[in-house]
């Protein structure tokens, strides 16, 4: 290249002939360049430089924009707990999300080189990129709802859990508000006082829908008079549809609760005998002793509400869920970038390594990864910049109660300045912070581009 260049230039006039007119075309060229650059410069000035300078200026003023308060907004930023949480969360994001995306993208891209149906697989992984961030947010919010009837993830967890340990037969049943029965802290329903052998202990319960009773349930009846060594009683649903009936008494079509386990517990808390209620709710327990008194209980296992999944969108896990949704979207991006880097690579090096006896891991470690490094860094830095600015997902996914725990700088920026806070001074200060955080990565990126061009 360079030789042909010299060859073309020299015959025209040589060094001395070229020098005199050098200045004039230089200046003219500068003017021409300026004219061509002017539209871009004006746009950059109006859309980038001016807003940055104005934000910096505005960040020195209070909410009203009238009073100069110097760096006060910057102090508030780090002392106000809400804003500080957003900064903390941004740090978590930057540490976790870009690495995960890049690593996943790398794995996908490398493996993709080896499977059939690679295009179909690539398409699926890349697909989330085609969905708007807000829509993805809505999808993830719905998936991770706490109520298993609404959120698919918890529905799956509950289904798996129930397959291994089925729930209680009467979840939520409890004594009525004017009942003498007591509920222990673990949910066990107990007779108020000890019950003497040879007497009756009834259990009127409420809080169950009649429609959920088992088909075998029959109207409750009073238990038979106990023999001297027995304790008897009835467990029934003390509720008449439409109201009415006397609380605590059997009748009016109140139904027995078949299958409830009843236990007799001695004063040391040890279970001495137990029975299961019949279809009409009656039970009979033969006491090991013919006298004495015991506490009669309905163990909590009859009534426990059952497993209801994990509070994914609660304060502790919400950021993890949002990052997961981000990874779901952006892993496709890094995969495509890295795959294009792979396909541009000269495979003869890898083949040579293989011929020399390197195993696949060594090929990857020593040949593929180093050659991919420029692409990996571009992907990584792009993701860092992207993650620092994250807004949509964090705005959409958390329910109101965990929004303060999930917030990031961009969301906080919007909230304090436009989302109700009306403090554009603090908002501007946050914007400047975001700029300062993004800047180093921008510089690295620009440097890299430059270096690549020089090569």
């Amino acid at each position, binding site marked *: 290249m360079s030789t042909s260049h010299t060859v073309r230039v020299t015959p025209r006039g040589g060094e001395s002939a070229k020098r005199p007119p050098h200045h004039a075309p230089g200046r003219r060229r500068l003017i021409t360049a300026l004219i061509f650059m002017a539209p871009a410069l004006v746009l950059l000035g109006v859309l980038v430089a001016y807003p940055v300078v104005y934000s910096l200026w505005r960040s020195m003023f209070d909410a009203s924009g009238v009073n100069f308060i110097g760096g006060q907004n910057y102090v508030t930023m780090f002392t106000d707990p809400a804003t500080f949480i957003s900064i903390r969360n941004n740090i978590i994001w930057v540490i976790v999300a870009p690495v995960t995306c890049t690593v996943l993208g790398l794995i996908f891209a490398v493996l993709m080189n080896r499977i059939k149906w690679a295009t179909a697989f690539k398409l699926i992984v890349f697909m989330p990129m085609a969905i708007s961030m807000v829509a993805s947010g809505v999808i993830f919010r719905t998936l991770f709802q706490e*109520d298993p009837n609404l959120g698919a993830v918890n529905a799956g967890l509950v289904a798996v859990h129930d397959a291994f340990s089925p729930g209680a037969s009467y979840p939520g049943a409890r004594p009525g508000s004017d009942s003498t029965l007591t509920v222990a802290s673990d949910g066990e329903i107990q007779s108020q006082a000890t019950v003497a052998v040879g007497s009756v202990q009834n259990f009127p319960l409420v809080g169950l829908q009649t429609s959920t009773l088992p088909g075998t349930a029959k109207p409750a009846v009073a238990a038979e008079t106990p023999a001297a060594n027995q304790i008897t009683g009835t467990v029934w649903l003390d509720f008449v549809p439409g109201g009415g009936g006397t609380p605590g008494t059997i009748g009016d079509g109140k139904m027995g609760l078949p299958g409830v386990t009843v236990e007799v517990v001695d004063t040391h808390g040890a279970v001495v005998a137990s029975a299961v209620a019949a279809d009409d709710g009656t039970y009979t327990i033969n006491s090991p002793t013919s006298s004495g008194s015991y506490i009669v209980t309905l163990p909590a296992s009859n009534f426990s509400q059952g497993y209801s999944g994990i509070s994914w969108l609660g304060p502790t896990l919400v950021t993890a869920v949002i990052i997961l949704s981000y990874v779901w979207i952006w892993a496709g991006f890094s995969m495509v970038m890295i795959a294009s880097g792979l396909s541009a690579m000269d495979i003869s090096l890898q083949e040579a390594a293989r011929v020399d006896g390197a195993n696949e891991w060594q090929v990857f470690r020593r040949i593929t990864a180093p050659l991919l490094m420029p692409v990996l860094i571009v992907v990584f830095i792009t993701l860092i910049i992207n993650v620092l600015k994250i807004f949509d997902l964090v705005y959409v996914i958390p*329910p109101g109660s965990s929004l*303060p725990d999930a917030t990031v700088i961009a969301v906080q920026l919007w909230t304090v300045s436009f989302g109700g806070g009306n403090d554009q001074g603090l908002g501007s200060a946050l914007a400047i912070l975001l700029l300062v955080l993004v800047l180093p990565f921008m510089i690295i990126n620009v440097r890299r581009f430059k270096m690549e061009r020089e090569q």
Partner: protein
Amino acid sequence: MKSTYRRQVLIATAVTGAFAMALAGCSSGSTPAPSSAGSSAPASAAPPDLSGVTLNVAADWSGAEQTNFEAVLKQFTAETGATVNYTSYGSNVATTLNTKITGGDPPDVAVIPQPGLLDSLAKAGSLIELSPETLASVQANYSKDWVDLGSVDGKAYGVWFKGSNKSTVWYNTNVYTNAGATEPKTWDDFTAQLKKVADSGVYGLSIGADVGWPLTDWFENVFLRSAGADDYDALTAHTMAWTDPKVIDALTQLGTLWGDKTIVQPGGAQRTFGDSVTEVFGSPAKAGTVYEGDFVAGNITSQTKSVVGTDAKFYDFPSVNNSGPAVVGGGNAAIQLKDNKGAAALMTYLASPEAATIWVKLGGFTSPNKLVDMSAYPDDTSKQIAESLINAETFRFDMSDQAPSAFGGTPGAGEWKILLDFYSNPTDVQGTAQALEKAAVEAYGK
């Protein structure tokens, strides 16, 4: 100043489509009454001849609400000959209106949803005082609370054309019938009935705390009843501290209810408000009762198969310590921004029962105007909403909507966040009151 009205937007979206359409459906066939329907109304002199006059009117209504409001304006045109152009300012009325005023081109009349905006515009001298005819009509047709709400420093500026009732407790009639529960009148009876519902195996109450705004409405209703209107105003203006014993009382009362695990459906802190309506009126119903304003009717119709008026009814927010009928609500006030005969005539017209009746018949509308004939409401539920609003001894505008938005209108901050924390931890009354006071001091700047 409030420029961002997230709350207003939420409500507006909920109301616009569904409620208006649902109720309008019931009244299909009834066309706007022809003119001279209300010749018996006081202070309604013969309408002036305004042929050739063009008036610009702006409000936040769009869609079905815009169509209905235009029907109201059309009648004015028919009576006076004036041409009226309506522009929708969308949800951000405050900003748009302020921009127009600064630009020297305000509309002749605007209908705004915020008393705070009315206040600031009046103080800035942008508003024209009500003409003597309009004032007479307003004083005759509206209760004192509404007149006061439209007045600044003793001068009347606003005509509250539309009102809303946020003191309505909605319940699933099937659940209540099954449980043998009845409509309560007092707070104690309220909790007793909720317990009855809970005993039937369905939770008594579903709360969708959402980003926090439904909780502010809960608090405002309890506080207005337990502390009274004067203290309500004082707290609204933040001349009363949030650590006042009366605030503590109201919070304690709320905390006792919210903390009752047998009554309140679990998971409320993460539930959106819309979902809480579905929990109550969906199939199967998981809870019996949900509290919020009259717009819940719209949620019920659009989200569930329950029918408002048969499956879904409401009762007034229960009285606390024998308090009289009180309503916390909202509304839209007409204000005059240009001093001309046409604008003044339009204000007089909007204050008349005839104007309100046109929209009342079209549905999805509650008028605070006492002289509107109750039989004009297209169905029993909307009539009941209006009756509660008109018959209330006390009406107060939603407190959080009047507070600086950093306190009463920001997700994740101020009252919304603090009440959400309180909802999750309802025994921490003192801590909540202190946090509210601290946030209020910052937001009010005093």
